[in-house]
């Protein structure tokens, strides 16, 4: 798994690449932008090939903590394999999911303005 961070219109975009399972999930949890509860981020999943429940748990945990402190985590470009994991576990309802990263960034900026 590789994590790449980008900044666009003042919003952090975290791009996840490769696979996330029990062996890589701790790394995801430790990542600065993801673990920072006050930072609104967009997670770009376009290049994520595989996600299991350990990875899902890490994402949900981070989203919970962001939500508690008024920040958001938006997801974009989920492929079919990854979407299936969210779908089966019923955790789709937790997230705002976009099919394009740019749209997610736009939404994140409007969220920030309204706060």
């Amino acid at each position, binding site marked *: 798994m590789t994590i790449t961070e980008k900044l666009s219109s003042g919003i952090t975009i975290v791009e996840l690449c490769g696979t996330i399972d029990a062996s890589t999930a701790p790394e995801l949890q430790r990542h600065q932008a993801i673990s920072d509860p006050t930072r609104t981020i967009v997670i770009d999943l376009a290049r994520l090939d595989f996600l299991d429940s350990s990875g899902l748990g890490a994402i949900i945990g981070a989203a919970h903590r962001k939500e508690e402190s008024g920040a958001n985590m938006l997801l974009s470009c989920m492929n079919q394999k990854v*979407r*299936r994991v*969210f*779908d*089966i576990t*019923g955790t*789709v*309802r937790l*997230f*705002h*999911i*976009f*099919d*394009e990263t*740019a*749209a997610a960034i*736009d*939404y994140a900026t409007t969220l920030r303005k309204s706060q």
Partner: protein
Amino acid sequence: MKTLIAIKEADCNWMRETLPGTQPLLAPLCNKPFVEYLIDFAILAGCREIRLLSDGPLSQIEEYCGNGSRWGIELTYANLHPSDGEPELLRKNRKFCGEERTMILSGCTFIDYDKTLDYRGLASIDSGGTIASCPGGSITLAGPLEPSLTDQPLPPVGLTPIGDLKSYCRIAMTTLETGSSRYVLPGYGGEPGCAIGRNVTISKTAQIHKPASIGNNVRILPGAVIGPSAIIGSNVIIDKGSTIKESIILDNTYIGEQLEIEGRIASKNTLIDPESGVTLAMQDPHLLAGINGGATALVLWRKIVHALAAALLLLLLSIPFAILYPLLRLRGKWQDVPSIPNAGLAESIASAFSLDRYPLLPGVLTGRLAIIGSRTHENRAANHTGTDCRPAVFSYAETEAWAATESDAAIVERYHALHSTPLGDIGMTIQALINRIHYRNPT
């Protein structure tokens, strides 16, 4: 033009209580899943790319609809958030919508369309926003206008909410009455108002009154009266002398003898009154077996016949069993006998003679098992608490090639458990033996 079909769990809470386990978009309306009506309408409106959106699980629909090639369209799936409105939907699916005109069908509503009319004018009408709405749903247009592909004026589009069981039932009945003149309905039917699916057996003395729709794998026994206004799903048995009128019988349901179902929904062992919402779940695995009890003399006679048949099989199969059992056991393949086709000569013989069931045969002699009845070798005990459950060496389900899934098998077993005669059981056993060979060797 593109279409977003969005349905939220909150729109169809009513369905979860009365039709548990049914994905709202797959709820059958006149034997056709609800989602197909929406897709049909989108296609009439000229859409070739459709996306289904829900805040609940979509995997069931994905499995059913696939990629849309069946309709000649491209079908994709995405999730939405329970709080999303139209602007959010468009934003979240911006890549899909592109710079094209997009129609959003939202909520649990039924669209009154007519398949003979041309709805492509929707792409070019400049009404902006919602063109039709009703409590719980709407049709909205967004994005730039597109040049019209038709000179026809846009036909009216009406919406009917499906907000409870009552409206669900009413819409199903209206669809049945309107029939295939307006909607594309499943099944064969030479005349309007009557559609019949595959593998349907109707007794000569049964009556069918239009309008009626019958699904696949349905058996209608002597004296049964179907309709007017009856929707019978798939894998259904309507037993002798029963009447189904102004009612919906959902998939995998057995209707016992001499019952009268009028203005009700029957689903497995549950009977629902759509008017009052009262539901009645029968303890019997089937919906009431009628009020006549079984004769006890028959039980003894059956035991004797079964024991004799088992003794005969024990004798006939003893030689192949004595030779093959040690051979296969040593090779560690015994457990797999029923599932290996033609793996080797020994396995083929073993499977052709159903030797895997041989060790169960002594159980028939002691009266613990029946030769044919309900399945014992699989973990289905929990489903069979009814009195007509007869654990057996062979199962009635094995006599029917179509009974592939659990619920199909359960239906067949229920039916035969009630109707079999001891001598008929022997015939069924032979049929099961033959069918098991075909099952494993589909060539």
